[in-house]
């Protein structure tokens, strides 16, 4: 079986409704992104959060894409949490995006939003 690596992108969110730009490079030693997932420290914060995402300047998730489209709770097995429809080249390609908080009442700030990349095909 090909080598697999999981990479985390951490996004600091300071206040309700904040919109945070982020970028990260994928590991150069892996050829493919075969899935991605996301989590927040409090699952109640997920509704209304949006994630705009580009990989190597190609639009993956358009503006207004809701974070809930790529999240699951802990009852889902770890492998099934990954949104495997995303199949892109890694090779050090840049992941750019914008995370926007959903302003759900009762959420504690600041927090770290996390995006997980599954990389395969070690070079």
């Amino acid at each position: 079986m090909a080598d697999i690596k999981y990479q985390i992108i951490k996004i600091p969110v300071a206040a309700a409704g904040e919109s945070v730009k982020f970028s990260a490079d994928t590991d150069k030693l892996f050829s493919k992104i075969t899935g991605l997932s996301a989590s927040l420290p409090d699952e109640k914060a997920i509704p209304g959060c949006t994630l705009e995402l580009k990989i190597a300047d190609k639009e993956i998730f358009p503006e207004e894409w809701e974070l809930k489209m790529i999240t699951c709770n802990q009852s889902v097995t770890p492998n099934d949490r990954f949104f495997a429809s995303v199949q892109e080249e890694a090779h050090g390609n840049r992941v750019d995006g914008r995370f926007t908080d959903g302003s759900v009442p009762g959420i504690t700030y600041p927090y770290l939003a996390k995006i997980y990349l599954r990389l395969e095909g070690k070079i």
Partner: protein
Amino acid sequence: MEAAATTPVWKIIQFDVTEPYDIVCIDGKLPAHLTKCKGIYFSIKNYLDTAISEIPEAGEISLLFNSRKTHPVHDTIGYSKVPTVKRPVFKKLSQMLLPNQTITGFYLDYGKVLDRRGHFLPYTVNIYFECECFKEMNHGQ
């Protein structure tokens, strides 16, 4: 030989529902390079502090593709303020897309999105389209 998997192209058409029993006209376009819509998903965006945690039918949606030539979607949209257990799954569709044609239709609110005092809560709906495009345009966009 196994074909290389490619990422679908996702597009969103969004509209607002501001009054109970609102009828909203939907009029949008998908980019001309998209050739097929193979999935659709409706979502009431944002957190709404509704009186009940799940509203199975917040409203009704009807969509016509290719400038009213086909009518593949007539459905209801629900809302849950409980965080999702599983990731939402696109409803299967197999709709060829002609270039530069419109997607039109309507959304009818059922007046069910209410807070604890019975007041209507305005909301936003996202329609997600999962599409395929010409192979040579699939990368480097």
